[in-house]
């Protein structure tokens, strides 16, 4: 759905660009291809790596690790799992809902979701390619610390 909207916007702007200037459009296409091809190897590696990781860590394993009365240990595991893995939102939210249903606390669930969204250890090589190592590490570390603090607060509150 959202991919479709994205295509619509991209093609509309491309058509507009083409009507205004043929040269600039060619330049835009060249740049688009160059940056795509340039980063493709990193993208492919990261995605296959994620595939292998998630094959080992299936839904049952995650529910078991974060399930009922997993407490502080569950928080820690949630933080590590969320940081390391990369799960698309349309899988992550139902998974989080089933975690809650299986007895995981709000804190663990929020921790898992927040680190999942903000921290990306496996995508670090991609981030480094654009921001340099220092900044990529720094951003992920800050996001991690923030995720831990806010999830503990959220868990205590809800």
């Amino acid at each position, binding site marked *: 759905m959202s991919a479709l909207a994205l295509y619509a916007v991209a093609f509309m702007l491309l058509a507009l660009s083409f009507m205004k200037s043929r040269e600039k459009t060619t*330049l835009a296409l060249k740049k688009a291809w160059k940056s795509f091809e340039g980063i493709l190897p990193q*993208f492919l590696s990261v995605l296959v790596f994620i*595939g292998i990781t*998630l094959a080992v860590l299936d839904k049952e394993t995650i529910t078991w690790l974060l399930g009922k009365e997993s407490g502080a240990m569950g928080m820690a595991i949630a933080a590590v799992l969320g940081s390391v893995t990369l799960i698309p*939102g349309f899988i992550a939210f139902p998974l989080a*809902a089933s975690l809650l249903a299986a007895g995981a606390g709000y804190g663990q669930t929020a921790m898992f979701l927040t680190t999942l969204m903000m921290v990306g250890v496996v995508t670090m090589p991609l981030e480094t390619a654009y921001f340099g190592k220092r900044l990529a590490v720094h951003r992920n570390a800050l996001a991690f610390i923030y995720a831990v603090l806010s999830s503990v607060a959220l868990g205590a509150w809800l």
Partner: protein
Amino acid sequence: MINAMAVIRRYRAFLILVGVTAGLVAFAPSVGQRALALSKANVVEMLSFLPPIFLLLGLLDAWVDRKTMMAYMGDEAGLRGTLLAFVLGSAAAGPLYAAFPMAGVMMEKGASMRNVFVFIGAWSTTKIPLIMFETATLGFRFMAMRLVFNIAGIFIIAKILEKDLEKHPLPPRTGAS
């Protein structure tokens, strides 16, 4: 010949991981099959999101010059620039890794680092379609709480990273441009 070697070298990590997956399929079929299916789904997802994103990125690169970008999202743009970065990130579609190339072009064109990180933060946690989905699966209360916390976090993290960059400026780009 030299060309083929260069290509292989660039895709080395990918080829090794494909080898690992093939090994899993051969020796641990249940895990291997799952890894194969997941990787395939991941790659399909990526290939469905990335082409329009890179297309937009190319158009942005060709049409928006440095002056315009600085006026809208540079240091002088102030609060309005930050708001624009937040809205753009929230309206985005696609996984966080798709935000990095976008942020790269914004950076090159003179957007302020604070705005670049607000954009990335918004992309990671306040995407509108995801919020609606989150409300449906986890309830309004959970979504609202997480959202409030995370929006605060986006600005705090952007501020800290900006401060840090003043002390340690960015080295020359190593990524593809």
